[in-house]
């Protein structure tokens, strides 16, 4: 299969099919509705099932049921709908069930609008639902990257028995780009011998639950879950660095904003300003390594987000006071322009003239 021109939301859906996901339970919400509609058309073609739930709450719980029966399953939503899925995500974590949940973010809080935003960062990376937990969050910045990351997401989900979140914004969902659906190879996964499919042929009844009324045993269970979290924090870190060798100013951005920032960086480089990029791809676990390696060398970090400033907290933690961390953000559904980011770079650098004279 060569390259095809497709819309972001549809790429997410087809990428899931490429990852052998045959089951999808969803609920329409802008700006991700094309994903739901694509699945309605596509999944029956591959012998799978699409079901439109009555709400986001029902959709995530159908995912819970399907996952407990041992299949690869996915759901998607956008910010207000994603908030409703948090209950289910907490239960998936507690019951150790794999699933992939897509959030194509829009402006908030509340009903907000349907323009692109990145203001669900706290919600997806810091738990979101109740209880102590983290789930892996992958943030693609191109439609081609979606194809790989969604396959990774299903593999991580099945490897660790955890929900995995794919985080994009309305722009990523709505843009069109040529993509190629390459199927990735992965090491074999453990058998899902925990799935409740009926006991035919496999003996004693199995139970899937997140309940443990005894405090001592629940703590033990949580410690085991935490070990899994620790392992993911080590093994599932993903990030990209650009032009970091001699960078004095480092832009930190993820998703579509990182692409816009990259254009601003190229322009600044043409003007002789030494700028680099750190692009977290896994937002949890947050990539600390590129900051540990650069924080003594660079003069400043500039965190650029489509929010009032959320990822900047993780950047500051990673930098740990060694280097100033500045912020530039637009929110409410406004996408920062290349020019705006370029201006910020120049301003932080003390102007183009100054930069050229260095």
């Amino acid at each position: 299969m060569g390259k095809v021109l497709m819309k972001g939301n549809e790429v997410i859906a087809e990428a899931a099919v490429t990852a052998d996901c045959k089951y999808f339970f969803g609920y329409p919400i802008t700006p991700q509705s094309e994903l739901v509609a694509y699945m309605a058309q596509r999944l029956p073609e591959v012998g799978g099932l699409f079901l439109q739930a009555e709400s986001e709450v029902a959709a995530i719980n159908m995912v819970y049921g399907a996952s407990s029966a041992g299949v690869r399953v996915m759901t998607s939503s956008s910010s207000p709908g994603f908030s409703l899925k948090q209950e289910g995500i907490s239960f998936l974590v507690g019951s150790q069930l794999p699933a992939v949940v897509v959030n194509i973010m829009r402006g908030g809080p509340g009903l907000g609008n349907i323009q692109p935003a990145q203001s669900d960062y706290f919600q997806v990376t810091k738990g979101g639902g109740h209880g102590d937990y983290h789930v892996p969050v992958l943030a693609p910045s191109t439609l081609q990257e979606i194809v790989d990351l969604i396959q990774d997401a299903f593999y991580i989900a099945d490897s660790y028995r955890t929900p995995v979140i794919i985080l994009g914004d309305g722009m990523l969902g709505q843009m069109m780009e040529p993509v190629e659906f390459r199927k990735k190879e992965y090491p074999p996964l453990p058998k899902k011998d925990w799935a409740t499919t009926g006991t035919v042929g496999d003996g004693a009844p199995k139970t899937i639950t997140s309940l443990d009324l005894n405090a001592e045993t629940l703590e033990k269970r949580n410690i085991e879950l935490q070990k899994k979290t620790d392992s993911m924090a080590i093994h599932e870190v993903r990030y990209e660095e650009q032009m970091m060798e001699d960078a004095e100013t480092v832009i930190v951005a993820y998703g579509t904003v990182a692409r816009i920032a990259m254009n601003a960086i190229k322009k600044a480089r043409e003007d002789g300003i030494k700028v680099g990029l750190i692009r977290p791809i896994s937002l949890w676990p947050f990539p600390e390594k590129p900051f540990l390696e650069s924080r003594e060398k660079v003069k400043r970090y500039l965190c650029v987000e489509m929010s009032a400033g959320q990822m900047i907290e993780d950047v500051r933690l990673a930098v740990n006071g060694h280097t100033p961390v500045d912020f530039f953000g637009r929110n409410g559904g406004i996408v920062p322009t290349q020019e705006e980011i370029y201006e910020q770079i120049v301003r932080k650098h003390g102007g183009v003239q100054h930069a050229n004279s260095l």
Partner: protein
Amino acid sequence: MQTVFEKTKGLTDQPTHYCPGCTHGVIHRLVAEVLEELDVLEKTVGVASVGCSVLAYDYFNCDMTQAAHGRAPAVATGVKRVLPEDRIVFTYQGDGDLASIGMSEIIHAAARGEQITVIFVNNAIYGMTGGQMAPTSLVGQKTATSPKGRDISIQGSPIKVSEMLATLDGPAYIERVSTHDVPNIIKAKKAIKRAFEAQKERKGFTFIEVLSTCPTNWGLDPFESLDWIKDHMIPVYPLGVYKDKRGE
């Protein structure tokens, strides 16, 4: 020696946590006996709800999944839709779970005609949470959150779930039964069996509402509780078949 009676294989040996006089144990046994008699125990996945029956998975001798409060019909939908067609899926839910927080999930599962069986245990009160008013609490019924008795002008009227679901086209079988005496327990078992048979035949959504006791939160002894079902609940929640599409 001839064996004249033995415990159903549908239940484990685990002693239950239910209060003395509570009829959850009776309803568990009816469901378990039916699953054994239909020879589907190995093919069954049960979905436990939140509330007193949250630990149902310890007692049923089949695969079980525990669902969030009210979400059991959505979870059961996910389970049933991805498993081979011969699998039997049931939810076991109380009134607080099903008729309050889970009202949306039960209505839509019924409307879709999900091929599942819902055992709806109605004791007109929140049990495990400690005796608060349920959507099914009777007018005048004193509970922790309706201390002066349920007042229509304040808390509205009881919800008759079987009647309401029977207005939908999706359900294949809906019956309300009671556990207040032996003849009714026998009728309840027949109804539960009809529901699971209808699921086996893929007739659609099946729903059995079982009127049940809550001596602890009603503040009555077990015998008075059985009478309370008969004297107070049945007039509000009449027993009988509300939908039957099995013959179609």
